[in-house]
């Protein structure tokens, strides 16, 4: 779930206003258009049915069960308790902590992980020896599964025999040695470190692709006008990378909201809930405590947060990236 969903079609669906893409209708074309509509519907049907059954229906079911006290067994839920599950969630220090920790991860991702990816992408855009190799190397962690990454880093960060502490010891920094994943005070930092290691390559590739879409002439023109390399980056590259950066921030935030498998393998949310995320709490209550109703309520809150964020981000941030396409369509009308 943490992997940013590249195939997610929601952004397109949401921004394309219903009237936006409709070609002009003329009486002579009406018959052809109706037939076209049938064809379109037929072709869309399998996908729509799957989408309905596998996406919309589970969301509806989760919303329904979230207002019941239900252990998941014995037929349909019957013990209706209104919004109690939700008030319970927002009164529970673990869940409120989840929200706070989620926010911390989002802020850290945007302030540290993404700028780092951008910097490395810019570096790897230069002509240099072994460029392809470095690109491959930095992208490699993203290809690994979250579970493998988790297991790998539990070993690296292990208190006694772990690589991290061995290296710190070897260079004489014994005072910095720590039980990384076993201390409430260091666990979030360690988790963020692993997240960065895992995902910065993905954002780097996005930025690299975006950077290569910028015509070289623009940079050259700026250089002729006397812009130094920093000015070229600041006033030419960065603005033109805007759409890529905005998508990358979007994926990063959604990924942080849904973070589960990496945390589960690394710490299971511990010690004493200090690295727990919403998804981990949901799993605990749903599958360990069999309180499906309450777990559904948590999943509904997660869904709500993601949805509100996605819509707001579309409305206020991504709009300018898609506006061009839509306005040109409008111009035709």
């Amino acid at each position, binding site marked *: 779930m943490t992997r940013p969903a590249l195939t997610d079609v929601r952004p397109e669906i949401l921004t394309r206003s219903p009237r936006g893409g409709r070609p002009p209708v003329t009486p002579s074309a009406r018959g052809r258009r109706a037939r076209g509509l049938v064809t379109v519907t037929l072709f869309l049907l399998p996908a729509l049915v799957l989408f309905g059954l596998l996406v919309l229906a589970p969301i509806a079911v989760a919303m329904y069960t979230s207002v019941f006290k239900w252990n998941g067994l014995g037929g349909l839920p019957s013990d209706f308790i209104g919004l109690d599950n939700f008030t319970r969630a927002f009164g529970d220090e673990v869940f409120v902590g989840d929200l706070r920790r989620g926010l911390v991860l989002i802020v850290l991702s945007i302030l540290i992980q993404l700028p780092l990816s951008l910097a490395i992408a810019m570096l790897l855009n230069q002509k240099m020896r072994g460029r392809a190799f470095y690109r491959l190397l930095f992208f490699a962690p993203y290809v690994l599964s979250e579970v493998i990454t988790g297991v790998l880093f539990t070993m690296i960060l292990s208190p006694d025999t772990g690589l991290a502490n061995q290296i710190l010891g070897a260079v004489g920094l014994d005072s910095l040695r720590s039980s990384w994943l076993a201390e409430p005070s260091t666990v979030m930092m360690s988790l963020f470190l692993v997240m960065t290691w895992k995902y910065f390559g993905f954002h780097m590739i996005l930025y690299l692709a975006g950077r290569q879409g910028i015509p070289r002439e623009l940079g050259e023109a700026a250089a002729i006008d006397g812009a130094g390399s920093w000015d070229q980056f600041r006033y030419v590259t960065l603005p033109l990378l805007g759409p890529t950066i905005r998508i990358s921030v979007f994926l990063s935030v959604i990924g942080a909201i849904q973070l589960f498998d990496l945390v589960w393998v690394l710490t299971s949310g511990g010690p004493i809930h200090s690295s727990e995320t919403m998804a981990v709490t949901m799993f605990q209550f749903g599958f360990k*405590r069999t309180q499906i109703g309450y777990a559904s309520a948590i999943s509904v809150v997660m869904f709500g947060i993601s949805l509100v964020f996605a819509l707001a981000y579309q409305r206020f941030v991504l709009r300018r990236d898609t506006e061009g396409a839509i306005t040109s369509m409008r111009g035709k009308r």
Partner: protein
Amino acid sequence: MSLNRRNMVLLAAAALVLAGCGGQGGTSGTASGTASAAKVTVEWWNISTTEPLKSFWAQKVKEYQAAHPNVTIKNVPIENEAFKAKLSTVAQSGKTPDLYSTWGGGVLKQQIDAGLVKDLSSEAATWIADFTPAALQAYQFDRKTYAIPTDIGMVGFWYNKSLFTKAGISEPPATWTAFLEDVTKLKNAGVTPIALAGKEKWPGHYYWAYLAMRVAGLDALKQAAIDDDFTKPDFVAAGTHLKELVDLQPFQKGFLGAGYSTPDGQAATMGNGKAAMELMGQWAPVVEKDSGKGLGKDLGFFGFPAVDGGKGSTGDVFGGGGGYAVGVNAPPAAVDFLKYISQKDVHRAAVETGALLPVLKGEEEAVKDPNLAVVAQTLAGATGFQLYLDQAYPPAVGQEVNDSVAALIAGAKTPDQVAKAITETAKSE
């Protein structure tokens, strides 16, 4: 190539003919009636994914099918955690496999209440009597039996004899006070007294549970589950005693992040001789060897010490086992196959592989491993039996016990808060 292909075709044809014969043999073999003659498939979900049990059960399935040609046993071994996730998913859809692993207690109770589990009391009455009461206890509710045990074990201290000698401890402690003194002695000798998997929570709950058994007694634990009240002074006292231990800082470095069977986890720490003891179930020696070097002859076992002034008996043991439940819609052949794998000679052979402990009366001498023999004998002579709390209670309460005790061990909750948190969850269930 062409020869191979021809062989394949021949094989397939032969298989078809054989299958046809098999079917006919089945119908002609049973003259009693059409119902028993019809082909039956019994789906059996178990957690025996490792040797020796994996091939042992596969062999037994073959033998059973040879004797009952109309029955097909679909043997589905699933890894423990995956099994739990898979079973809870199918159970929520209102179904279960015909025959499946269970640990009894609160989880099984939920399935029984949902009408998913067959009551075996009358159907299996004749052979249920062969099992020891301790082995059956986890599967019995309101005097009815809902599953048949196949394994039973208990939790106790596994200790490293040479490290105890190094710290000048001549014999295992018999009381909690002596235990705490020994912990201090071990610490003074530069030995990590106890290995604990803090990440996984369930190993920590053993301490609180045993202390509650020793201080409050078995009846009080049962009553607390009925009254949903764990705030009695005895339960707080159990937490206070655990806090006495935690305050000595007896656990290995970074124990809060340690798993149980991971390369640097509790079992490995113990198995590599880096800690003097662990409180763990009968499987401990095997896992110590799997994830570490194993202690061999240095490994010893002692029961949980008594607590001064406590109401519980030191003969009371804490543990659990595994058994098989039958789905409510399972064919009669499922019960018959369960009877087959539970009968004396078959189960005894399973015990002799060293992978299971005795559940049938008088099976103790089949245990070969000296450490496991101690466990089997302690179990046979137990004065009382308490199932793992995270199994005995409804899942939410059991997990709250694990969670709160983990917080106590991490220093984030007081004994009083632990008692209150468990009570609160129990009341809301």
